[in-house]
């Protein structure tokens, strides 16, 4: 008895294979996205935790200007501190002969002899220092690979006013620099121009004149300790040494980017798969309902033969389960494949020595559960209706639908102008509103996904364009090691190719609005700045106030202030004055959380007449290389960044990170649109075989019959497109709000062309789906249907 039903199950599957494949694909997409995201999430999290634990990542970082090494004993005594380590960190420039500009480097000191240190090094080549490490360097792996530098090569480094070659003795990676950026202002790493490197303690001490002194402290804290309290104690202890404030691991730049990525993935892992699986459930519901209803007679016969109600229901549920299972298996396989590809990308993107790729059984189980659950849910409804029927009732054909006036027919003038094909289409759609709605929802989702994908491109583009064309108008920026007077500006103006130069000054401050505080840097600019566009919400240029601050939107949000409020400014440098200043404008900026003020005002806070920490330049491109070469020899220069490169890095990173996900998203959208439309058309074709056969008999051409079917698809597509566009816009808007971290925000931009593009894409999917159905129609002999007696 059982075998009979199973054989029937197999036959059902085979006859409906195309439709089943479509549904399986939709489910697979959902499961794949779920598995990909969860696996990548746990992979990245595990990799991070393992890396941090194995190489003893510090919990607290405390930079100071200069402190005696003995201060470490004091810090060690602070309650909650477990281990403390001091080091000497300096910015240097590196002269790579085949690069026309100086590369920037940051040297950290490590003990002369290898041992257990905080923020340990993962040596990928070479060894630790020989002797006291004089003129030896351990270079970051990424930079070494970028420039094909090997152990034994020399690196020309300008340190403390002296250019000298350092012998590369080792190549290493560090958990502290999984995302290699120079500082808070940078977003995208430039592996060709910036690197970290490690010098021996003895060599650092002698070359920087820091005998028995340090300028950076690393610490780990007890698990039970309150990190904020520990930081407060450290700050208090180190204030006399020019501390600008200790910060926790969660605020460490490199870690922050890694965590942002992990959090973002966690967030989307909760949304995207549900969308796909939801659609799959919709489609499955419709399909199963159609299947069960078409087999109404068979169900009745089974019942008459004595199969129990439960057995019949179980039979149909098995079909659903099988579809769900198939989807889950395909999806999991696809998901794991994606996840391993993403893992490889992550290993490269975040400079990880290893990537722990684990087959996340939870994710697969979750995928299985969700897909089977949704499939069952879809089938259950239809089966229950059939199973409730009396066998005798079931054997009779279903009562014809009541063909009353539909909504469309009430609009008389319109209706009268329509041909019969159009009328058929509209009537059919109007009579199966639930199915139409479901198809429309599917299309709407697909539209929204495409629109959303194009939005991400646009948003990124708009962000880069606004930030680097309208806001940052310089061609290059030259950062100094220490603050310089106005004469530095005059001097830079003399460098080759410099058309204009403007100073910048960054002063470390703590901004406070009542209990809300934020440590940040205030960027000082000349009041008549031409190389920085300060734009408010309406993209209007605003002038810097003589005595006040401007905040970027992100910072204003963090501090909870609006234009006109007053902020307390606690300067963390010099005499550490505390001031109260009004916020004169909130700027619409997408990158970073900055505050701006008049450079002369900032200089006064530091008790200086006019100082700058960097200079922005307009450069004649003709002399760019010459300028870069000249800057290589200036001991005061810590870094040179050319905007072109930054923009290119932004675009490249965007392409790199988005191409894959966008391709996947587009593929998913295609699968949904195609799956939904194909299934609907196939169901229509099956259900209306008699009508279509009749049309052929009364003399309609094959084309006209096809038109009726395609028309239905078209109507459903249009019905789905309209809410889909709205949904896509809404989704984009939500993302622009939800993704606003302090590091960057996405502007909300929606161009009509994107809408057109998404509509076109969906139309293409619909056309493909219909073409397949029409081919089927041509192949099958519709008239045959009429011969059967129901």
């Amino acid at each position, binding site marked *: 008895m059982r075998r009979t039903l199973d054989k029937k199950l197999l036959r059902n599957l085979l006859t409906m294979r195309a439709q089943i494949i479509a549904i399986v694909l939709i489910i697979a997409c959902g499961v794949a996205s779920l598995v990909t995201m969860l696996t990548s999430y746990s992979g990245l999290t595990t990799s991070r935790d393992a890396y941090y634990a194995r190489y003893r990542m510090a919990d607290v970082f405390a930079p100071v200007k200069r402190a005696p090494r003995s201060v470490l004993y004091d810090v060690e005594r602070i309650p909650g501190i477990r281990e403390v380590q001091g080091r000497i960190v300096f910015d240097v420039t590196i002269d790579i002969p085949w690069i026309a500009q100086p590369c920037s480097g940051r040297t950290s000191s490590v003990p002369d002899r290898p041992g257990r240190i905080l923020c340990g090094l993962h040596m990928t080549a070479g060894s630790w220092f020989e002797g006291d490490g004089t003129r030896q360097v351990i270079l970051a792996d990424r930079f070494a690979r970028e420039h094909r530098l090997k152990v034994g090569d020399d690196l020309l480094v300008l340190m403390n006013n002296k250019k000298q070659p350092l012998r590369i003795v080792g190549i290493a990676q560090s958990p502290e620099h999984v995302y290699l950026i120079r500082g808070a202002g940078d977003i995208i790493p430039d592996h060709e121009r910036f690197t970290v490197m490690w010098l021996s303690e003895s060599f650092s001490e002698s070359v920087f004149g820091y005998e028995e002194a340090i300028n950076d402290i690393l610490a780990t804290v007890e698990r039970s300790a309150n990190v904020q309290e520990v930081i407060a104690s450290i700050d208090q202890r180190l204030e006399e040494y020019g501390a600008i404030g200790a910060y926790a691991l969660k605020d460490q730049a490199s870690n922050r980017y890694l965590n942002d990525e992990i959090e973002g993935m966690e967030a989307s892992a909760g949304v995207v798969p549900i969308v796909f699986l939801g659609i799959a459930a919709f489609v499955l519901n419709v399909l199963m309902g159609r299947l069960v209803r078409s087999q109404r007679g068979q169900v009745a016969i089974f019942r008459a033969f004595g199969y129990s109600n439960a057995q019949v229901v179980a039979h149909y549920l098995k079909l659903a389960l099988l579809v769900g299972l198939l989807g889950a298996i395909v999806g999991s396989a696809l998901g794991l494949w994606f996840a391993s590809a993403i893992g490889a990308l992550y290993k490269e993107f975040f400079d990880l020595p290893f990537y722990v790729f684990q087959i996340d059984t939870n994710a697969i189980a979750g995928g299985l559960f969700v897909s089977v659950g949704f499939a069952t849910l879809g089938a259950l409804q239809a089966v229950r209706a059939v199973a409730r029927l009396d066998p005798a009732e079931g054997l009779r054909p279903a009562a014809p639908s009541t063909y009353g006036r539909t909504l469309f027919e009430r609009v008389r003038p319109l209706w009268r102008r329509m041909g019969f094909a159009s009328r058929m289409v509209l009537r059919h759609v109007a009579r199966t509103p639930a199915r139409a709605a479901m198809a429309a929802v599917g299309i709407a989702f697909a539209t929204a996904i495409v629109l959303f994908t194009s939005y991400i491109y646009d948003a990124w583009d708009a962000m880069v*364009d606004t930030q680097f064309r309208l806001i940052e108008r310089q061609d290059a920026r030259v950062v*100094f090691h220490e603050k310089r007077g106005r*004469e530095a500006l005059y001097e830079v103006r003399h460098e080759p190719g410099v058309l204009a130069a403007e100073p910048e000054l960054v002063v470390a401050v703590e901004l406070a609005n009542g209990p809300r505080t934020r440590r940040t840097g205030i960027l000082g600019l000349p009041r008549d700045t031409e190389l920085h566009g300060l734009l408010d919400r309406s993209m209007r240029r605003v002038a810097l106030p003589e005595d006040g601050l401007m905040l970027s939107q992100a910072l204003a949000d963090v501090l909870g202030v609006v234009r006109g409020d007053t902020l307390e400014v606690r300067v963390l440098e010099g005499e550490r004055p505390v001031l109260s200043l009004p916020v004169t404008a909130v700027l619409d900026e997408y990158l970073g959380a900055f505050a701006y003020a008049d450079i002369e005002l900032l200089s006064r806070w530091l008790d200086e007449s006019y100082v700058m920490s960097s200079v922005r330049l307009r450069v004649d491109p003709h002399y760019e290389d010459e300028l870069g070469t000249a800057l290589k020899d200036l001991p*005061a220069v810590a870094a040179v960044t050319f905007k072109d490169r930054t923009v290119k890095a932004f675009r490249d990173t965007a392409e790199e990170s988005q191409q894959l996900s966008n391709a996947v998203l587009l593929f998913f959208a295609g699968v949904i649109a195609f799956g939904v439309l194909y299934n609907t058309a196939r169901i229509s074709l099956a259900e209306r075989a008699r009508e279509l056969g009749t049309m052929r008999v009364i003399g309609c051409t094959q084309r006209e019959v096809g038109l009726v079917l395609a028309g239905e698809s078209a109507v459903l597509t249009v019905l789905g497109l309209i809410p889909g566009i709205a949904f896509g816009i809404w989704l984009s808007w939500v993302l622009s709000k939800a993704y606003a971290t302090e590091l960057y925000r996405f502007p909300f931009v929606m161009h009509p062309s994107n809408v057109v593009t998404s509509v076109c894409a969906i139309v293409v999917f619909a056309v493909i789906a219909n073409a397949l159905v029409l081919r089927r129609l041509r192949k099958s002999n519709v008239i045959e249907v009429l011969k059967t007696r129901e």
Partner: protein
Amino acid sequence: MRRWLMWILIALVVAAGIWWFQRPRPVPIDAVHVTRGGVRHTLEEQGKTRVIERFVVSAPVAGRLLRVGLEEGDTVTEKQTIAVIDPLPLESRVQEIESQIRAIERRIDGVGTKKPKAQEIERARVLEQTASEALRVAEGERKELVALQKQADRELERLIPLAREKRVSPSELDDARTAATQAKQRVDAQDNRIRIRRLAISVARLERAVLEARLSDYDWEEKVYREQVGGLRASLRSITADLARTTIVAPAAGTVLAVHKESEQFVAAGTPIVDIADLERLEIEAEYLSEDAAHMRPGMKVEIFGRALGERVLEGELLRVEPSAFEKVSSLGVEQQRVRVIVKFDAKGTGLGDGFRVEVRVILDAKESVLRAPEGALFRQRDGWYAYKIVDDKARRVRVETGIRDGRSREILSGLDENDELVLYPADAVGNGTRIERLPPAEAQK
């Protein structure tokens, strides 16, 4: 047929719609205008003021400087007493020297009384002359006596043979003999007399020498005393002069820049006490790169600005470019050759003092009323400079020839006209033919 037409129409409308929405979006830009105005080629550098003439008033004499009553910033008039060095020690010195002089003068008088008189020397001389005369007489007498002796000897010799022949008497011979002996004795006696005379001369000579020596001894002693008096007189004169200078007066009207020695104390001569200068007569020195200085000529206009002057910009004139450069490690850490450039300006009422930090801007070239475009609107492409001119809301690439520039705007020699609208900071978002959209104008400066 009509259906076909309708479909074609619909397709066209759709295609048009797609084209309309898909065409490139206008790029938001800041628009600026080509204006007519001044463009200047300038070179800015840090400078510091210095007084043109600084008077360092120092102690003219060593002594106890009495407390200086002036403070930095006080104004002084010419000849105003600035400081006083206690004159008392000098005054007593004067008296002391005067009494010394008097004492020596007495001593000179004393020397005059002890000197040999002229008559004594004359007498000694006459005595010597007399002795010489006597000698001469004695020698004359001796000649006579010798002649007599010879005559007597000859008589005797003539008589001796005669006596043997007994032609003369022995008495006659004896007489002759006696006569010869007497003649000889007389000569000898005369010789003795001559010897005595000679001794007398020596004695007279010695006597005179002694007198003369004594005279010169006294002369020398007197001369020594006179010299001493001369020396004392000289120091008296200098001390008197010093005494006159113990009151130190201002060499010129001006402002006290520095008081080096304020409290009462002993100072060596030459110790600076106060600096005085006329603060209304300032100049500025700025250290320019030698490459820049080479383009500078005296008489060029200079603008002076900086925090010390607030919003004011002073006019000045390049006075001098020093001929010799010196090496200096620049702010950014490289060795450079710098040249000191001196700028003349009117410091009246500026509030500037000596050694104040100011910024100077030497105007190498200035053109009034030329076409100019903001630096940010111009960009280089391989062979030259271009701008994007906005024509019908589209960016049109225009080649421009540029002249001098001042870091903000640049002179336009050709390619653009006044009031042409340009794209500011086009970057690569704007290309030839790109549609543009103007951002709202900048907020009005408060």
